[in-house]
């Protein structure tokens, strides 16, 4: 097997480690850092460095090396954390991410950026530690990114200040053992090794802590297979072979692996650290139990390509359809003579639904996936804008379909930027308004029926009605001063709309809110804005839970069956003739509890033959789409059912008024209606009818 086969695993792991690192850095209390957290950050950097070395990603390896050195000093308490130091660490993390991306795409990372970050880190080491050795530690790695010979001779140099460790492998085969021993030689000197596959004991003299050794070895074997104990008496004499030769030659696979250079310490650091090596090791020894369960958790997940999951979901959808087809057939049978069959059908139904639910849950991801990227963004932005902001997230564990969760990130980022830039005021202004100088930005997610509700709430100045109206007028939008607040707020979703007095690089270019709205509509959701002057603004995004399955209401019109998304249906009623009002042209309104709703006649919009044409004979379904309500006239309601959404565009194209299709129990196709689009279609058609009538009248009476 080629080593490049492991690249993807490394990239994904490194990405997770970087995300962890960022999270920990952000949570870090600068004045009183938690030693466990510092250790965890160090371990993350160390693991990335190890992997990068193994795969020969030199630039990545050296950048992490510098970072790791600084982190090492930090966790030993030799370097006092400050906010700007954490900022530099975060910047380095971003750089590592860029480098990782570059390697992933098969490119070499940006050399200038690399040099710059190296200089910054070296400078920091020099200033903060005030010791010559720190520079010494950094310099050999930085200037030449090509070879990495320094780590190879780290083993002998470590001898003076090192400790002895007894490492026991439990149930490790020959091949892995060869790799492990080779790996260990980078840490220090292997003094003795003996044993069999069951138990294999190695004595190692090394300056590295056993925690670090364990972290690296666990790339190859499970943590349970490894026991590391310090040997207190340094006088233990080697039992058998002292040389490390046989081990390295023993394994076949090990030969392909480039020497994972710098997995151990660079010579500089180990010497520099010598006086303090002892206490630090003890400290690390304490943190060991905490590290262990985390590693055990890794093996309880499994990485699966999304298309495989989608295929399963599709197949389960088919199964559900087949099951309801069978059910329809079975329901016509005599229950007495076919008892077992009917029972079996019931069982099948239950199992199929359970299966469907479990399969759908695979695609679900917690909102934390989205929310976790905001602390950083808010922190950076608030600093840039000179604002004091506290970020609160609620409902992190709320789950949402993966495809939606990925598409919600950009709109949400935009809304958060907007809130920070326009919504929240500067500390001075806030104090003047009698508010706490620290602004509060809340991100929340919660389930509501078949929808998920995501809110971005700020306690800032709120939207300025006058400003928006003035801007809308100057943009040539049709507005009046008497418009309702809700309508005014909707104006900010118009393309090219921005009330920011100054265009900053944060927001205010007027591209965005319209894109936000469009993106969310494409996901089948909508956006609402609630705002109180001086109290703040709430932007609410309502999204369906999943796109693959829909709770539908089937309706009949003429001889045809259509599906209405259940979350669009509010109620249904039998209209009375006195509640129907005509407007200019042939537009009609239905009065429902003091509200006048535009009527959409389904058979007119979709040219259905044989439908009930008399309004009072039909049933009015009150539906909402894109935040507006309509009365949809249909012949009959059939019932509620779950339907599997099938894309029409796969083999055909977008059809006006229709969002997708589904397959009914009898195997026929039913179309799923798109309320807002249906209304547009209806308007277009009635306009057409109107023009035809006018043209006809003009022809009849030549003026």
């Amino acid at each position, binding site marked *: 097997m080629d080593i490049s086969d492991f690249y993807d695993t490394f990239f994904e792991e490194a990405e997770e480690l970087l995300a962890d690192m960022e999270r920990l850095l952000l949570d870090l209390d600068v004045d009183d850092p938690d030693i466990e957290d510092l250790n965890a950050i160090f371990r993350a950097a160390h693991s990335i460095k190890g992997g990068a070395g193994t795969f020969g990603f030199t630039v990545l390896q050296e950048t992490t090396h510098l970072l790791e050195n600084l982190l090492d000093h930090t966790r030993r308490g030799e370097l006092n954390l400050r906010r700007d130091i954490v900022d530099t660490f975060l910047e380095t993390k971003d750089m590592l991410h860029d480098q990782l991306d570059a390697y992933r795409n098969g490119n070499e990372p940006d050399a200038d950026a690399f040099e710059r970050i190296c200089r910054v880190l070296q400078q920091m080491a020099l200033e903060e530690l005030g010791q010559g050795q720190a520079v010494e530690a950094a310099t050999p790695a930085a200037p030449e990114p090509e070879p990495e010979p320094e780590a190879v001779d780290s083993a002998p140099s470590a001898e003076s200040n090192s400790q002895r460790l007894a490492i026991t492998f439990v149930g490790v085969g020959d091949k892995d053992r060869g790799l492990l021993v080779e790996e260990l030689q980078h840490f220090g000197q292997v003094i003795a090794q003996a044993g069999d596959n069951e138990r294999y004991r190695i004595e190692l003299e090394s300056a590295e802590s056993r925690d670090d050794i364990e972290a690296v070895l666990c790339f190859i074997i499970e943590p349970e297979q490894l026991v590391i104990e310090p040997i207190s008496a340094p006088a233990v004499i080697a039992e058998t072979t002292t040389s490390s030769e046989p081990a390295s030659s023993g394994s076949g696979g090990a030969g392909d692996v480039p020497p994972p250079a710098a997995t151990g310490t660079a010579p500089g650091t180990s010497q520099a650290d010598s006086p303090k090596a002892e206490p630090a090791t003890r400290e690390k020894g304490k943190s060991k139990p905490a590290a262990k369960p985390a590693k055990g958790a890794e093996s309880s997940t499994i990485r699966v390509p999304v298309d495989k999951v989608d295929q399963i979901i599709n197949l389960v959808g088919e199964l559900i359809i087949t099951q309801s087809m069978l059910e329809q057939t079975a329901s016509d049978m005599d229950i007495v003579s076919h008892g077992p069959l009917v029972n079996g059908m019931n069982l099948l139904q239950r199992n199929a639904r359970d299966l469907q639910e479990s399969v759908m849950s695979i695609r679900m991801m917690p909102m934390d996936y989205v929310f976790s990227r905001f602390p950083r963004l808010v922190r950076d932005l608030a600093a840039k804008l000179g604002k004091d902001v506290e970020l609160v997230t609620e409902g992190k564990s709320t789950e949402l379909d993966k495809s939606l969760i990925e598409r919600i990130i950009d709109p949400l980022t935009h809304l958060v930027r907007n809130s920070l830039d326009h919504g929240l005021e500067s500390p001075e202004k806030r104090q003047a308004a009698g508010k706490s100088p620290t602004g509060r930005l809340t991100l929340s997610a919660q389930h509501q029926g078949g929808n998920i509700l995501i809110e971005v709430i700020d306690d800032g100045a709120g939207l300025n009605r006058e400003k928006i109206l003035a801007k809308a007028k100057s943009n040539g939008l049709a507005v009046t001063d008497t418009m309702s607040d809700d309508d005014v707020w909707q104006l900010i979703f118009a393309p090219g709309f921005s009330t920011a007095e100054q265009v900053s690089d944060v927001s205010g270019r007027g591209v965005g809110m319209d894109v936000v709205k469009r993106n969310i509509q494409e996901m089948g959701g909508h956006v609402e804005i609630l705002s109180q002057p001086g109290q703040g603004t709430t932007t609410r995004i309502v999204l369906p839970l999943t796109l693959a399955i829909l709770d539908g209401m089937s309706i009949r019109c003429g001889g045809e069956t259509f599906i209405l998304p259940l979350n669009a249906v509010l109620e249904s009623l039998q209209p009375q003739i006195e509640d129907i009002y005509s407007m200019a042209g042939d537009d009609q309104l239905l009065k429902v509890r003091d509200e006048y709703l535009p009527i959409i006649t389904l058979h007119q919009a979709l040219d259905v033959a044989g439908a009930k044409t008399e309004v009072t004979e039909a049933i009015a379904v009150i539906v909402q789409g894109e935040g507006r309500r309509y009365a949809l006239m249909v012949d009959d309601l059939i019932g509620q059912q779950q339907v599997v959404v*099938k894309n029409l565009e796969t*083999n*055909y*194209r977008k059809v006006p008024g229709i969002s997708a*299709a589904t*397959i009914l129990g009898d195997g026929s*196709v039913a179309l799923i209606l798109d309320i807002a689009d249906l209304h547009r279609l209806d308007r277009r058609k009635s306009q057409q009818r109107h023009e035809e009538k006018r043209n006809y009248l003009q022809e009849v009476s030549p003026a």
Partner: protein
Amino acid sequence: MTTQASAATTVNDAASSEYLVFSLGEEEYAVDILKVQEIRGYENVTRIANVPDFIKGVTNLRGVIVPIIDLRLKFNLAKVEYGGQTVVIVVNVAERIVGIVVDGVSDVMSLTPDQIKPAPEFGVTLSSDYLNGIGSLDDRMLVLVDIEKLLTHNEMQLIEHTAEHA
């Protein structure tokens, strides 16, 4: 695709290719057999509103929603009846699956290049752009339809063309 094509024709003249012959009214047409996925009966088609009349609707082909078009309507043929003989040829073009309604399928023919004559400049309904040529076999004349070109053409309104949106 090309390897399949060569494998299918090794029995015959190396250069010949196979066509599925179908009838529309009195005329005989043929399409490249490699584009044909399957042949099935005409049933259970759900109408779609506000589309040209030759698009009959969509049907369920083992869980996949497939549009059905009636070439007889597209070609302005007089006799358009749906009966037991009416079949749907399911073709695979431009990574899409489309069903086309025809009066019947007769057979599969091998045509050598010299049996295929260039298509003459045609009338309005069937532009020669959509034709591979005219196949002549004894006294039969087969209109060789380039089904891919025909179905992906703007006029068929089967595929969303980006220009429509701009």
